[in-house]
C-alpha cells in the first residue's frame, strides 16, 4: 500500500510540472505582449513595465522564476489587466463561491445518483427502474449549459419561485438552480453506473448464498451488495470532479455567481494571461489531488487490487 502511495505521488509531481510548463509556454507563444494595446505605449514606459513584471529576462529564466514562485510560495504573480490586484486575490475571491456550490453539486450527484441507481437495480423492470433509466438517458443530453436556461425558464420566468441569478452571499435560494444545473448530468451517470454494477453484483453466487441462508433483504443489500457495486462509481468520481469544475465556468457565467469561472472567461476575453494560467494550474492541481485521493480510496476499498 505504502509503495503504491509513493508511486502515485511520484507520477503526480511531474504531471503538475508539465501542466505549469505547458501553460507557461502557451502563454508566451501568444502573439503580442500583455501590454500591447490600441494606443501604443512609449518605448521607455513599456520597457519599465516589462522590467517590473520581469518580462525583459530570457524565457528560461522567466519560466524557472514562475515555476519556483508557484510551487514554493503558491504565488501566481500580479494580474496583467487589473494593475492593483494579484492573481491570488482574484482566486481568493472566486474560489470559495465555486467551492460552495461545487460541493453541494457533488453531494447531490452522489446522494441522489447512488440511491436512484441502486433502487432501480433492486426493483428491476418496475416503473421506478424505467423512471431512473429514462432520467439517466435524458440527462445525458442535458449538459449544464442546457439545464441552466431551462431551469431559469421554469423557476424564474414561469413559476417565479427563484431568483434568476446572483449569489447574495450563498443564500439557499441562490444556490438551488446552480446546484441542479451543475449536478444533473453527473447524477444521471452515477445512477446509470450504480444500476448496472448493482445488477451484476446481485447475480453473483455469494448474493445467492446470502439469500439461501435467509438473510433479510436489507442486510443483503447494505452489507453484501452495496460495497462492491460502488467500485465503478468511485472510479467515475475523478472524471465527475473534472466535469463539475469545468461546468462551474458555465454556472458562473450564466447565473452570475461570481466564482472562479467568471474570472477565467473574463480573463480569456481580456487576454489576462496570468489570471488564466493561475486558474488553470489551480484546477489542474485540484484535479490531480482528487484523482490521487480517488485512486487511494479505490485501493483501500478493493483488497483485490495490489500494485
Amino acid at each position, binding site marked *: 500500500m505504502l509503495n503504491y502511495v509513493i508511486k502515485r505521488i511520484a507520477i503526480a509531481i511531474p504531471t503538475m510540472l508539465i501542466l505549469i510548463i505547458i*501553460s507557461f509556454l502557451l502563454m508566451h507563444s501568444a502573439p503580442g505582449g500583455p501590454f500591447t494595446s490600441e494606443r501604443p505605449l512609449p518605448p521607455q514606459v513599456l520597457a519599465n513595465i516589462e522590467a517590473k513584471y520581469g518580462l525583459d529576462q530570457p524565457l528560461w529564466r522567466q519560466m524557472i522564476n514562475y515555476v519556483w514562485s508557484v510551487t514554493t510560495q503558491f504565488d501566481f504573480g500580479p494580474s496583467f489587466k487589473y494593475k492593483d490586484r494579484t492573481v491570488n486575490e482574484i482566486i481568493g475571491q472566486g474560489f470559495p463561491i465555486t467551492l460552495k456550490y461545487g460541493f453541494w453539486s457533488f453531494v447531490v450527484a452522489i446522494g441522489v445518483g447512488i440511491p436512484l441507481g441502486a433502487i432501480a437495480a433492486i426493483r428491476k423492470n418496475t416503473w421506478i427502474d424505467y423512471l431512473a433509466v429514462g432520467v439517466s438517458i435524458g440527462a445525458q443530453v442535458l449538459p449544464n449549459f442546457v439545464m441552466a436556461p431551462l431551469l431559469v425558464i421554469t423557476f424564474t420566468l414561469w413559476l417565479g419561485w427563484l431568483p434568476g441569478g446572483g449569489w447574495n452571499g450563498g443564500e439557499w435560494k441562490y444556490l438551488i438552480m446552480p446546484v441542479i444545473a451543475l449536478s444533473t448530468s453527473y447524477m444521471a451517470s452515477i445512477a446509470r453506473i450504480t444500476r448496472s454494477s448493482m445488477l451484476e453484483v446481485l447475480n453473483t453466487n455469494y448474493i445467492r448464498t446470502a439469500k439461501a441462508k435467509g438473510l433479510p433483504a436489507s442486510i443483503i443489500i447494505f452489507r453484501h451488495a452495496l460495497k462492491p457495486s460502488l467500485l465503478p462509481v468511485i472510479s467515475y468520481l475523478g472524471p465527475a470532479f473534472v466535469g463539475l469544475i*469545468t461546468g462551474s465556468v458555465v454556472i458562473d457565467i450564466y447565473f452570475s455567481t461570481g466564482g472562479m469561472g467568471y474570472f477565467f472567461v473574463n480573463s480569456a476575453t481580456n487576454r489576462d494571461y496570468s489570471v488564466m494560467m493561475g486558474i488553470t494550474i489551480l484546477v489542474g492541481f485540484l484535479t490531480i489531488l482528487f484523482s490521487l485521493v480517488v485512486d487511494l480510496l479505490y485501493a483501500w476499498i478493493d483488497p483485490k487490487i495490489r500494485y
Partner: protein
Amino acid sequence: MIVANKNKIAEMAENMSGMDAVDGRSLWADARRRFMHNKAAVVSLVILALIVLFSFAGPYFAVWSNEEIDWSVMGSAATKGMPSFETGHFFGTDDLGRDIYSRVIQGTQISLMVGVLGAFVAVIVGTLYGAISGYVGGRTDQIMMRIVDILMAIPFMFVLILMLVVFGRSIGMLFIGIGLLAWLDMSRIVRGQTLSIKNKEFIEAARATGVSGFKIITRHIVPNLLGVVAVYATLLVPGMILTESFISFLGLGVQEPNTSWGALISEGAGTIRYDTEWQLLFPLAFFVVSLFCFYFIGDGLRDALDPKDR
C-alpha cells in the same frame, strides 16, 4: 422420358450452382443485421440522416438567408419576430432581425462538421498511438502510456480555452484543439485491444514472412480494431459536439458571422428574459435530438459489434 430427365438434371445442376453463389455471412453483414434489429438505433439513424439532409437542403426553402437582416423586426423581436410562415421566418428572428431558421441550418452544419472532424482527428491519432504502443510493448509502451496518463490528468477544457485565446479563435483551431486532446481515451482502448491481438497466429505468420513492423500495424492490426474504433468514434462525435457547444456557449468558440448550436443556445439563453423563447428552443431541440441519436446509434453499434455477444 430421357429428355425430361435430362431437363431435370440440368435444372438441378443450375439450382446447385445457384446455391454455390450464396455467400457465408461476413462479420460485417452479421453486425449490420444485428444493428437493423435495434429499433432505437435505426430510428436514430434515420432522424440523424434527416437532420443532415435538412442542413444541406434547408437553405433552398429559406426565405431569408443567414446574412440578411429583416430591418422591420430589428429591436422588437419579442412582438414581431415570432415564428410565422407569413413573414418567412419559420423559426422566428433574433433582436437584430436575423432569421433563426437560416442560422440554425448554419449552426447545424458547423456543429456537425466540428463533431465529425474532431472525432476524425482523435480517431486517427488515438488509433495509431495506441496500436504502436501496444504492438511495440515493453519500455516504449510504458513511456507512451505514462505520457497519456499525464495528459489525462490535465484539465483539458481549461487548456483548450487557453489555446484558443493564444492561437486565436477559429473553427480550424477549435477542431484541432478538441481532436488533439480527445485522442487519449481512444489510444487506451486501442492499446488494450492491440495487446490481445498481437499474439495471434496471423501476426506471427506476418512477422515470420518478414513484414515490417509499421506495415503489420497498418495492414493487420488496425483493420482488426475497426469494430471497437467504429463504436468509440460514434460515441466521440457527440462528445466533440458537446465540447464545442460548451466553448461556444462561453463565447470563446465559433465566432460571428459563423455560428453553431452552442453559440445559438447561448444567444437564446441570454435573451429568454425578453420573451423570445423560440431563439432558445429551436437550436436546443436540434442539439438535444441529434445528441440522442448519436448515443442510440453508438449503443446499437456496440451491441452489434460486441464480440462478447456472439
